[in-house]
């Protein structure tokens, strides 16, 4: 009768007696006594068949690889999200800068115009006159380059430009 009701182990461990397989934590329950001198003997295990060893190896290896892949996958996903967010932020910054650039260009042009208008209004159209200008003739500097010398045989005079409003 007990035999009929014997339960099977979920993980059959062949050649292992149930007594010896239980870890030492199994406390002797009431009524059960163990001889203190009894030592646990580890019965020799028969070697696993090769195919089983191989299968176990494959299991371990694939498990490790799965772990690594999971970590990599999660990291890659994280990077994707991160780069996308950075890209959208950068685009927003670029957009804002472009707006600013356009505004600044237009504003500086308006400013230049107003400055020039004020200058003209203050002094009239006769701000620049050749009497107020120094014309300098540039001496041709011989650099040893024949072509340059030949070109600059009639040097264009440099002009001192009077402070016509440039609108800085």
């Amino acid at each position: 009768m007990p035999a009929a009701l014997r339960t099977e182990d979920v993980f059959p461990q062949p050649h292992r007696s149930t007594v010896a397989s239980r870890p030492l934590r199994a406390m002797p329950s009431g009524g059960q006594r163990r001889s203190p001198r009894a030592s646990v003997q580890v019965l020799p295990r028969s070697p696993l068949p090769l195919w089983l060893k191989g299968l176990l190896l494959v299991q371990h290896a694939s498990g490790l690889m799965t772990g690594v892949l999971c970590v990599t996958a999660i990291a890659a996903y994280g990077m994707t999200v991160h780069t996308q967010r950075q890209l959208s932020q950068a685009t927003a910054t670029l957009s804002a800068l472009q707006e600013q650039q356009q505004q600044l260009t237009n504003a500086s042009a308006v400013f230049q115009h107003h400055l020039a208008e004020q200058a003209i209004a203050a002094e009239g159209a006769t701000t620049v006159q050749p009497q107020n200008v120094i014309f300098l003739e540039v001496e041709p500097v011989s650099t040893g380059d024949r072509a340059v010398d030949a070109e600059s045989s009639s040097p264009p005079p440099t002009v001192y430009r009077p402070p016509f409003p440039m609108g800085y």
Partner: protein
Amino acid sequence: MVSSALEFMATLFPPRRRRSPAQFSPPPRQKQRRVVVSPRRRVLIVWGALMVAALLLLGRLAHLQVLEGSTLHSIASQQQARPQRPAIARRPIVDSNGMLLAADRIVYTLYGHPMLFQQPIGVIASTLSPLLDVPPEQLATQLKQQPSGVRLLDGISEDTARRVRQLRLNGLELIPEQQRFYPQQDLFSQIVGFVNLDGEAQTGLEVAFKNRLSLPHSAVARSFGSATIPIAELITNQADPLQLTVDGRLQRVAQEALRKTLREHGAKRGTVMVMEVNSGAIHALAVEPTFDPNRYFDANLDWLKNWALTDLYEPGSTLKPINIAIALDAGAIDPDDTVYDDGRITIGPWTIQNSDYEATGRQGTLTITDVLKYSSNVGMVRIMNQMPATEFYAWLEKLGIDEPTAIDLPAENVAPLKDREQFVNSTVEVATTAFGQGIAMTPIKLLQLQAAIANGGKLVTPHVVRGVVDDDGTLKWQPLRPAPRQVFSPEAANAVLKMMEAVVETGTGKAAQIPGYRVAGKTGTAQKVTEAGVYGNGRITSFVGVVPVEAPRFVVLAVIDEPSGDNPYGSTVSAPLVKTVMESLVVLEGIPPSSAQALGSGVILPQVAPAGGDSN
């Protein structure tokens, strides 16, 4: 299923009594039968439950992804979307120094959606009113008309738009768009033209180079979310500008001087043009009256056209140098010939006299140079009578009087030449054409002809556009232009130029003298035809100048229409204007004086430093 689950759960709570490992004895007899679910079955049950859960999840996932995928996608992108600013629609236009003449600018249109307002319309209207500069009653009326999509105001600047956004009112929407903006206001309006509020070019270069200035549009106001944006779709705000040959500084001086002249002489309108004689590049084109292209709707319709290109006028004495060049090239006269100036002659019922005949009664023999110096009409008639009228007419056709100058501004008008038979058979027609009345042309045409005298006889194409340049200033595109063609011989042109120099030195053009520079010129005072078809009291005075004579570079033409006053002449009205413009021109272009001695005192010759030494 459920019962087995319960049994399974019952097995999770084993009875207190621990079993010894050896005791797989049957449980003590109990009244209830306890079902023991074997571990294997337990595992299977758990596995089954998990599989069911997984299948449920899968099904939900499939439902979301496949069935509702597109809806959810659109909701998400709507949430994440940030509208992109519209890309600029047109290239900027810059002058020869890079000064900005026309550019795009973001302006906003404010829409109101009263159905989203959280405050009464009156409150919103009074909040917006100081920002928009619109009376609150007007805003309230507009908002009451529709529950949504009420257009309140357009042309709102960035500043105002930011302030409106900072109000954080629900139901207000700002739509951005690019609008053309002209920072130089009325200074370049006759050259650049304007674009109306709908974005359509109306006048000037904006319309002449419409296709070149428009930039290709990507889809309107794209929005992007957190999804990846291809770099190619990022809008750029940069476009290579269209560069002009016009110099903004010279233009400003010319415009101001022109305004001053018009004020002083009470004239109706005027123009000053500066052109390079060899290339035809226009450095200044000042036209009065003019308008502000930012507020083109405030301008008089007449001011919107560039009358230097569209209106014909009789050039008067400024055509005399050209006629002399024709006569020289036709072999009718030599440069050192003389003619007898009667002072006054009659041809049929018409009397032709010199402008100074009534004042001085001058008569006598004149050299060709003197004819120009004193601007003798009778002398010119005598000169042009030396050649047959048919040849004269052929020369006028060769010069292209009835052809456009092919300037790259739009709306250029062309004067028709008189009918050949009429011209050839009428002595008086030939006579009046000899001194510049009875023939009409646009100011730009006269400028082109005068440039031919200055540059050795070539008709150049006047142009204002240099081309499309990139950041470094290197040309990326240039408009095609007809090549200059030779109309006068260089000898004839140079001879006439020397005569014109005499006009400025000792003749009617003394007002245009610039100390230290050799200037050539010719005054012109033409009578205007009234509406009745006869010559009236109105004058149109002009002066054309060329500087420097030893190597001509620029020709300047000033035309002033109907100056009032006692006796307005080209020498009193237009010549001083040309002098002012020329003074700025030689400084801005760096044209040195003809000789140091000519300047008189105030010349410091440079000390030549000894080679290898340094001063101080």
